[in-house]
């Protein structure tokens, strides 16, 4: 999503967010991510205002003190920035891609099922299967930190069964233009 993004051309406005909307966002974050209220408080204190940065193609980035915390496309799920995910790796469920797929991930491609189902990849077992449309942290074989964040196009069980085409759509990856923007 942030393959080509430059502050000069792609940002249309910075607006502070109303506190009623802030409360709604806070509640949404607590329900969508696996995060404790206290930890969310340390990332985004109640006293701090949230700034809504509007970008092209209906993408909104929300920042605290200039630092981007999460973003959203249309009214879709709230996606944490990759930097935030590195600091708190447990807030999203994990899937792993094998080594050969890493370079494609780092170029922004979507992850195909075979990369997740092969020997180096890892998907959660059937009891913890994730439905389609879940936000996941995409980890890489042999690496400690997430390489990117994606949205499951198929449920993890379907990925194992069908094993063809796109499994996870890449929303953010290491080194994309959002990564390079440390503050907005």
């Amino acid at each position, binding site marked *: 999503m942030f393959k080509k993004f430059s502050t000069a051309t792609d940002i249309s406005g910075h607006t502070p967010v109303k506190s009623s909307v802030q409360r709604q966002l806070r509640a949404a974050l607590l329900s969508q991510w696996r995060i404790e209220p206290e930890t969310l408080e340390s990332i985004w204190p109640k006293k701090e205002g949230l700034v809504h940065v509007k970008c092209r193609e209906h993408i909104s980035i929300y920042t605290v003190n200039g630092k981007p915390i999460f973003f959203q496309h249309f009214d879709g799920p709230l996606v944490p920035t990759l930097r935030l995910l590195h600091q708190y790796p447990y807030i999203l469920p994990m899937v792993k891609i094998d080594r050969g797929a890493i370079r494609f991930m780092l170029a922004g491609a979507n992850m195909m099922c075979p990369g997740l189902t092969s020997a180096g990849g890892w998907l959660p077992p059937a009891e913890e299967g994730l439905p389609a449309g879940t936000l996941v942290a995409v980890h890489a074989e042999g690496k400690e930190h997430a390489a990117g964040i994606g949205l499951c196009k198929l449920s993890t069980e379907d990925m194992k069964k069908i094993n063809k085409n796109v499994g996870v759509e890449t929303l953010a990856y*290491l080194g994309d233009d959002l990564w390079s923007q440390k503050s907005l």
Partner: protein
Amino acid sequence: MGKKQRGQAPPAAAPGPEEAESSTAPAPVVEPTPPKEVVYCGVCDWPVEYCEFGSTFTKCKEWLKAEHPELWDKYYSEDALAARLGTISLEAQSKLEKDTAKKEAKAEAKAEADMKKKMSSQVIIKRIERTKRKHVTVISGLDKFGVDLKKAAKQFASKFATGASVSKVTAGATDDEIVVQGDVCYEVLEMIEDGVGVLKGIPADNVEIVEDKKKKGGD
């Protein structure tokens, strides 16, 4: 009376601390989970383990060795490399290495070309006549040195107590120009040379003053 008091005081004191404990026990303070500390490479700004996929791998390794020797050992020592071959076959691994080496060379060449362009680009200061006795100073080329134009314009405006604005030459790209009202070209030159505020990092020889006056005359 003394005995009674003493008799009463200890039993009163005993339930006191007990009550205090039971009231604080069910409300423990929940500490937020601290963030994980991540070491980002000084060269490519990725987590250190991903440097091998970037285009500046050799520089990254040198940086890591200098800054964080323990991590260097962890990732690049002999046994670590052997363990990392993982699930790809040997040919695939060597192909991957060749690809990254090629990418690295390309990226280096590109970075060099960019640097050269940067060195040769200049900041041009022009003085243009507006009406008979009035001039404007046009400063172009600051963009290439990574100067934030709006902030620079504001700085000029406050320093010279006149108006300053940013104008785009071509629509779309900011082909920058800062227009300052008044004849301030020499002062601007001084400001740039001193590197005041946002005007950092501009070597003095890259700045040029071009006279764009129609009339010749002493000033």
